[in-house]
């Protein structure tokens, strides 16, 4: 393992890669909420997100001794996590299950916007669910994690040009879905004279 000097996880990586449980635990703890957010958004379902997150953590722990440091640890972890989410979606597809309704606890302290926030998350889940997974993943990595196109390309193992087009197509579809307009943009009435 050759931890990149600029890797913000360089303080934990050598020990974590050597199997130090404390370091591994700290590394997971540092990124677990982000990983969960990725799982939650890509799978679109709380239960599936937990399954994917569990698989992801296992894969990360098992893969750490082989992590070669060619990319940032977070990039690698997002890649593993995204793969686990896509695997989870494939399993779901085979089981032909319908996504469960939003079951997350809105335990953020009784703010008046909780209902709205939950409804908004439900809308987003529904809109994301309508996106094919290969479009959903880059949009989530971009908008949720703020990765740039190059990082997304590295994370997903696809060319940057594909990332660019998938994000554009995916985001257009999301906008249509969230606004209740299912008509593709090319068929929408244009304001252009």
């Amino acid at each position, binding site marked *: 393992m050759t931890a990149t000097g600029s890797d913000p996880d360089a303080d934990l990586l050598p020990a974590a890669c050597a199997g130090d449980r404390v370091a591994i635990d700290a590394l997971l703890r540092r990124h677990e909420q982000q990983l969960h957010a990725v799982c939650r958004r890509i799978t679109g379902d709380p239960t599936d997100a937990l399954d994917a997150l569990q698989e992801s953590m*296992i894969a*990360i722990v098992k893969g750490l001794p082989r992590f070669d440091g060619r990319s940032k640890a977070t990039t690698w972890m997002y890649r593993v996590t995204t793969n686990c989410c896509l695997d989870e979606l494939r399993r779901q597809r085979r089981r032909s299950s319908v996504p469960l309704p939003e079951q997350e606890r809105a335990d953020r302290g009784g703010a008046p916007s909780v209902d709205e926030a939950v409804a908004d998350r439900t809308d987003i889940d529904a809109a994301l*669910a309508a996106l094919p997974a290969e479009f959903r993943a880059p949009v989530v990595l971009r908008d949720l994690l703020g990765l740039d196109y190059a990082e997304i390309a590295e994370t997903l193992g696809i060319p940057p040009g594909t990332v660019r087009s998938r994000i554009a197509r995916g985001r257009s579809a999301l906008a249509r879905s969230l606004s209740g307009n299912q008509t593709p943009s090319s068929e929408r009435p244009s304001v252009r004279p």
Partner: protein
Amino acid sequence: MTPTPPPEPGDPDPAVADDGPLDLDEAAVSAVLDDEATPEQRRRVARDPRLVARLSELRAVADRMAAPPAPLPAATMAKLRSAALAHAEAAEDEADVPPARDEQDGVEPTGATRDPAPRGGPPHPIDADGEGDDTPVTSLATHRGRRRRLPPLPAVAAAVVVLLAVGIGLVVSDGSSTEQRANSGASSAESDRSEEAGGGGAGAEAGDADQSAPPTPSAESGAFEGAVVDADFADDDALRAALAEVDPTTLTLPSSVDAPPDQPGLADLDSRTTAGRAAEADVTRCSMVLEASDPDIGPAQAALRVTVDGSVLLVLGTSVAAGDGDGPKIRLYVVDPVSCFPRFVVQHDR
């Protein structure tokens, strides 16, 4: 124009595909939004009020997407982490070899060509609402019915050597009958593990047994007859701190660490004694196991025998090829002298 029926949840949007023509306006707006636009795309958006309005629209969508989902409770996360660590340890015990990097990490965009590797439904220790239940976290390996893989060399080697050691020890030992009974039990257990993991390899190598095989550990304490101990430590942290200061090439402990009185250390062991032979054999065996586990790890150049809270551990100083141009490093592996499994590692840069 035919009206499009509203999609059902989970139905992929048929308008979203890689093969259709990409709307250049949408591509430009999206790229501007992500600050990834070319100068031409920026000009294209800036001079068209419709695209400027579309930019605001997409920005609102991106802002909604950026809102993180409700975080999981800390207890749930702790369960997931511990389950992952437990699973990894179980996998180590099962000699689970991780798949190749590309196989494990690569994303197959369409899923059409990638082996889906079907797995059973995952009984999850966490409720769907993110709350943990009272069910103890167990290794997922027991639930998911993963295919069994061949054990790694270190596990087989360790099992074989322990088996040899126990067998030879029983033959040459003049120890007490109590110890012999304990050893017999250990032998039986190890034999079972060896047969499960590696088949008949142990028997094939039994004839090559080294006559200097070590005495076997006590069944209860793991301590060896005739202690050879360089230092005592209260816990892992104390040992870790000492190893951080040690000269990694000689493993000379800091002066603040005192050797236990009336006990020889590895440096002054006598290989004619049973304890000396045992210590030497442990070092040799664990060094070989470490080398076999990773081609970058060299043979042990120095060793210590320590106790941590009463348990005997070996510290092996090995040179490790860095592979990144930084030059070799020295890793101090703290290992169990019986199984040779690392407990933790301290790395020194040369």
